[in-house]
C-alpha cells in the first residue's frame, strides 16, 4: 500500500477551471473520500489520479514518486467505475483475470488469485456467468473483485454504490468498509452522498466548485464545518441558517432578527461583525413548554423514529427534529431552546466559519 499526495492540482477544460488548486495528502492505508455536489470536480480529481485525465498544473505522487507522466496502467492503481465497466463478452472469471492475463501472469497463478478474490466476495458460483446474468450487487462485486485481484497500491472508486438500491447499498457499504479494512488498502473514494462519505471515510475532502473547502475527519467536519457550504452539505436533515444582526446592549452582544433575540455564546464574545449567518442543526434543539423561541408549525413530516417539523419564525422557516412521541399538529405553536454551543456562526459576506478563538 502506498501514500498518495496531490499537490496544487489544477484542471482546465478549455477555459473552465474545474479543479482548482487541490492539495491533499493521503496516508498509507487511509480511506479518503472526496465528497461534494455533482460538478464539483471530485471525479475529475480522481481521474487525474488514475491517469485518465491530464493534469493541467500541479503534481501527483504515489508512494513519493511523481506519476504525472505515467500512463494509467503504470501507476499501479485500480479503479472501480460507477457503471462497473464490466466486459460483457467475458465471463466473470475472465473479467477478474483479464488484467493479470494481460500482464502475463501464468495461468495457475491467475486461477489461484481469481478464486481467492471470488471467495472473498462470494462470487465462486458466478465465475462462469456473463455479467448480464448477474444482479446489480453481484456486478458491483465483480467490479470490486477486478480491482482487488490486482493487489494494487491504491484503490480508486468512483461512486461505486450509486447504482445499487437503498438496502443493497447499506449492506455493500458495510462490506466495503470491512474489506478495505482487511486489505489495509489506500482508498480514494468519490461520492456525492454525504452519509456514505461520513460512514466510510477516515477523512473527507469536501469539494465545491473545484476547490477542496474542508479536509478533515468526519467528526470535525460535522462539528466544525468550515463554511456555510460544508455545514449545509454535511448532515441530514441540513442545517438551518438565519441571517442575524449583532446588537450590543449593556456591553453584551446579542444575535437578533425580526423574530428572535439570542445572546452571543460566551466563546464568541470577541465577535466584531455587525451581521452574521447563524446556523444550527435541526436535532440540536430542546423543546420547552414555555419561555423558549416560539414558532408556528407549518408542516410535519414523520421520519419514523423522529418527526421533522417545519416552523415559521417570523419570515423565516426552519426545521427541527423532535421525538416521534410528541404530538404536533400544523398551526400549533411550539417553543424551543437553543444551546449556545449548538450555534455555528458564519461570516455574512464570505460565508466562512467564525471561530471562537479569534483574538484580534
Amino acid at each position, binding site marked *: 500500500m502506498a501514500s498518495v499526495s496531490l499537490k496544487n492540482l489544477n484542471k482546465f477544460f478549455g477555459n473552465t477551471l474545474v479543479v482548482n488548486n487541490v492539495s491533499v495528502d493521503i496516508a498509507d492505508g487511509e480511506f479518503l473520500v472526496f465528497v461534494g455536489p455533482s460538478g464539483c470536480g471530485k471525479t475529475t480529481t480522481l481521474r487525474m489520479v*488514475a*491517469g*485518465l485525465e491530464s493534469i493541467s498544473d500541479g503534481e501527483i505522487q504515489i508512494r513519493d514518486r511523481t506519476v504525472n507522466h505515467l*500512463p*494509467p*496502467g*503504470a*501507476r499501479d*492503481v*485500480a*479503479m472501480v*467505475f*460507477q*457503471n*462497473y*465497466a464490466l*466486459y*460483457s*463478452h467475458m465471463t466473470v472469471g475472465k473479467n477478474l483475470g*483479464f*488484467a493479470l492475463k*494481460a*500482464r502475463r501472469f501464468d495461468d495457475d497463478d491467475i486461477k489461484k488469485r481469481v478464486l481467492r478474490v471470488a471467495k472473498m466476495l462470494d462470487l465462486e458460483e458466478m465465475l462462469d456467468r456473463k455479467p448480464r446474468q448477474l444482479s446489480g450487487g453481484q456486478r458491483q462485486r465483480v467490479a470490486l473483485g*477486478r480491482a482487488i485481484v*490486482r493487489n494494487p497500491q491504491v484503490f*480508486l472508486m468512483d461512486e461505486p454504490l450509486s447504482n445499487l438500491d437503498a438496502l443493497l447499498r447499506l449492506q455493500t457499504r458495510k462490506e466495503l468498509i470491512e474489506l478495505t479494512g482487511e486489505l489495509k488498502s489506500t482508498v480514494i473514494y468519490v461520492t456525492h452522498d454525504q452519509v456514505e462519505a461520513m460512514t466510510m471515510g477516515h477523512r473527507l475532502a469536501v469539494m465545491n466548485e473545484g476547490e477542496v473547502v474542508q479536509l478533515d475527519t468526519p467528526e470535525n467536519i460535522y462539528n466544525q464545518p468550515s463554511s456555510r457550504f460544508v455545514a449545509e452539505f454535511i448532515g441530514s436533515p441540513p442545517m438551518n441558517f438565519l441571517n442575524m444582526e449583532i446588537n450590543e446592549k449593556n456591553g453584551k452582544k446579542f444575535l437578533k432578527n425580526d423574530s428572535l433575540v439570542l445572546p452571543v455564546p460566551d466563546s464568541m464574545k470577541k465577535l466584531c461583525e455587525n451581521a452574521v449567518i447563524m446556523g444550527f442543526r435541526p436535532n440540536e434543539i430542546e423543546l420547552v413548554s414555555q419561555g423558549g423561541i416560539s414558532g408556528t408549525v407549518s408542516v410535519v413530516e414523520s421520519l419514523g423514529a423522529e418527526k421533522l417539523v417545519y416552523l415559521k419564525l417570523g419570515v423565516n422557516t426552519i426545521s427541527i427534529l423532535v421525538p416521534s412521541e410528541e404530538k404536533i399538529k400544523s398551526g400549533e405553536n411550539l417553543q424551543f431552546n437553543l444551546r449556545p454551543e449548538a450555534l455555528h456562526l458564519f461570516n455574512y459576506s464570505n460565508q466562512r466559519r467564525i471561530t471562537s478563538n479569534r483574538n484580534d
Partner: protein
Amino acid sequence: MNSSYSVISILRLLVIVLIMFILLAPFLWILIASFRPNMELVRNQTLIPQNITLENYVSLFAKSAYWKWVINSFIVSLYTVILSLPLIVAGAYSVYRTQFRGRNVLSFFLLSVYIFPTALLVVPIFKIFDGLSLIDSHLGCALMNTAFAVPFGIWLLQAFLRSLPPELEEAAAVDGISKIRTLFQIIIPQAAPGIIAIAMFAFIVSWTEYLFAMTLLLSNDLHTLPIGLTGIVFGQYRVNWGFAAAGAVGSALPVFILFLIVGRWFIRGISAGAIK
C-alpha cells in the same frame, strides 16, 4: 378514441404495404417473368403467365458462365470484406475513440472518395493499379471496392463504437492493458454486431460494383456477376427478356440468400449501435 386509433394503424399498415409493394413488386414481376418463355414477354404482356418454362434458367445455369461469375463475385466481395474490415475498424476506432490533431480533418478527407465522378477516375486508376500489378486481379478490384466501402463504413461503425461506454477502455487502461489489446480483446468483441453489419455493407458494395470490375478485370475468367449479367441483358442487338429476367433473378438470388441468413443481423447491427 380507440377506434380512431385503430383506423390510423390500419392506414399506416396500408401505406407500409404500398411502399413494400413499390419496392418489391419489380422483383416479383421479374421472378414471374423469368419462368415465362421470351415470346410471351416480347409480345403483348399480360400479368398472368400463360406458359411456364424453365428454359431461361437452363440457359442461365447451364449455358452461361453464371456459376463462374457468382464465384468470382463472391471472391471479390470476400476480399473486399477481408480488406475493408480491418481498415474500417481501425479507422472508426481512430476517428471516434482516440483523439489526435487533425482527426476531424482526416475523417472528412476520407469522405472525399465520394466527391469525384468515379467514371472519370477509371483511366488514371488503371495506370496506378498497373504500376502495382493489380490489373486483371480480383484483389485489385477488391481494393477499389474497399476504398469506396471504407469511408462510409467508418461512419456506420462509429455509431456502434460510440454506444460502448468509454469506461470499458478506461478500466482496461487503469488495469494496464495495452491499447492494442484493448482494441482487439475488448472493443472488437463488444462491437461484433456492428462489425457484422459493416461486413455485409462492404459485401454488397462490392457485389453490385460494375465500372471498376469491367475496367480492371480483363480476363473473362475473372468477370464478376454484374459484368456477365450486363452481357446478357444489354446484349448488343437483342434482349432476350426471359433470359435477362432469369439473369436478374440470378444476380439477386445470392443476395437474397445472404439476407435470409444474416439480413436480420445487418439491421440489428446498425441499429444496436444507434447511429447518431
